[in-house]
């Protein structure tokens, strides 16, 4: 008893220390984001002329510029199109493969599994030029599907790994019972198995979406006008005029919003997703 008491009193400063650490760390994370957000509500003269911690002249003009100019807002539309395409493609090929890896041993399975991971390790910079030539030669350059397929390079391995992690948690007795009950593979897979791992599929979809959304190099290389993503439009603005900080900040804030909205739902799985399903 006295030991427990002693421990409790010894615990007190430790608890405070952890609060201090967390506060400092969260401040470190949030201050740069705060700066971007308030900048997006400032006029350019305020950004350049005054140094204010809070917008004195609160304006939505920067957002208005983006939402009324097609060369800006089409960037978001293009990004959404190829990101969604990519998520659908990645999930539909990864589901059966992840099932195979989680349930069966077959010739070369371990090597194949590692080989998939090597695609996640490949620097996109290595693939930029060959992708450009490959998609140009099949006249897919500057299309949404080209970017969607290119992002499969790292999203398919990611999806296979995460899904395999989730599927391993499903007891295989369920498969066996279903097969004994006379379910064919396809019917079992679509009617029973997929609904059972629906949360896993949701998390995987989120990660495919996210990794395709944040990528710049490949999507910029593979597009020029028609399918140009918002991220590429932003870097172009920096190099061309480099002055309209307010609009740039607003564009940045708008790219953060999709992630910020969904993050709450996946908060408990986020470690698993980033660890390729290995936690």
């Amino acid at each position, binding site marked *: 008893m006295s*030991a*427990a008491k002693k*421990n409790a009193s010894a615990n007190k400063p*430790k608890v405070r220390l*952890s609060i201090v650490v*967390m506060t400092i760390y969260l401040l*470190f994370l949030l201050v*740069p*984001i705060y*700066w*971007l957000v308030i900048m997006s509500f400032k006029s350019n003269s305020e950004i*350049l002329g005054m*140094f204010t*911690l809070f917008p004195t002249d609160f304006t939505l003009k920067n957002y208005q510029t983006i939402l009324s100019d097609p060369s800006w807002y089409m960037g978001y539309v293009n990004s959404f199109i190829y990101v969604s395409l990519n998520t659908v493609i990645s999930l539909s*090929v990864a589901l059966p*493969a992840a099932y*195979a890896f989680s*349930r*069966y041993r*077959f*010739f070369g*399975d371990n090597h194949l599994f*590692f080989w998939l*991971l090597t695609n*996640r*390790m*490949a*620097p*996109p*910079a*290595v*693939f930029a030029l*060959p992708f*450009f*030539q490959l998609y140009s030669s099949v006249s897919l350059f500057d299309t949404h599907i080209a970017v969607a397929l290119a992002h499969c390079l790292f999203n398919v391995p990611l999806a296979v790994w995460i899904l395999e992690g989730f599927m*391993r948690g499903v007891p*295989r007795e369920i498969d066996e019972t279903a097969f004994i009950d006379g379910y064919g593979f396809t019917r079992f897979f679509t009617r029973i198995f997929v609904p059972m791992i629906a949360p896993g599929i949701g998390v995987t979809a989120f990660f495919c979406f*996210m990794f395709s959304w*944040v*990528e*710049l*190099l490949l999507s910029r290389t593979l597009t020029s006008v028609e399918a140009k993503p918002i*991220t590429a439009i*932003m*870097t172009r603005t*920096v190099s061309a005029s480099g002055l309209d900080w307010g609009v740039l*900040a607003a564009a*940045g804030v708008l*790219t*953060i919003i999709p*992630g910020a909205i969904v*993050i709450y739902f996946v*908060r408990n799985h*986020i*470690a698993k997703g*980033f*660890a*390729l399903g*290995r*936690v």
Partner: protein
Amino acid sequence: MEKTVNQRAWFLVIPVLILVAFSSIIPMMTVVNYSFQDTFGGNDFFWVGLEWYRELLHSERLWDAFGRQLLFSSIILSIEVPLGILVALSMPKKGISASICLVLMSLPLLIPYNVVGTIWQVFGRADIGLLGRTLSDLGISYNYSQNAFDAWATVIAMDVWHWTSLVALLCYAGLRSIPNAYYQAAMIDQASRWSVFRFIELPKMRGVLMIAILLRFMDSFMIYTEPFVLTGGGPGNTTTFLSIDLVKMALGQFDLGPAAAFSLMYFLVILLISYVFYTVMITAEKDEVQS
């Protein structure tokens, strides 16, 4: 769980194989092809053998970029891993505060890479940025686009800001899997905080730590967008990492042969180091299953 041998499982894997072959093997073969050839423009290629490789291995530019890359990766690993563990240990264990911490910490991870660059660009500039302005008001001269040291400090701070949460989240997931009985046993033994960490928490975090190190190594070794947006590789060449150099060579100067040879060597280095990490990781996983 024992898996059954079933060669027909291959059919389930075939779609992935076709897709990844299309987006990985075909482009990779083009790269291999270019790395042995030279061109005088147009489509006239001729065989040069290992010429490009020989040239690159003696190129100061490549070795410099490689050195910078190694230095960068080791600096950020040595900052992010201890910091991530510290943050994971300090995180609240349950309740609403744990959720809030999880959400806020994940935020930087989900920001597009170029926006991360932009955030630090507007944050660090001496004329409009909070950080740059504060530092110059304090009398510290700071300019990340002119001074090499400042540029490095900013790129490292940016990466720590961007990715430390990843390490922390993984470690947190590892910590939460430790049964409470372990801590109770430690309490009975009157173990110090340090020995709880050293003999209970650290061994239990080993698996996730390996993953965190593997991922952070891989991603920091192929970092492109963030420093590209922030410093553009400058001042001079001081923050030109391998990917930035490669893109300059391949898409800027269109030097197909050298760029291809560069690509292959770059990929092989990552592959080699990652394979070592991966083997260690798998072995650790097996040990855990057995114990």
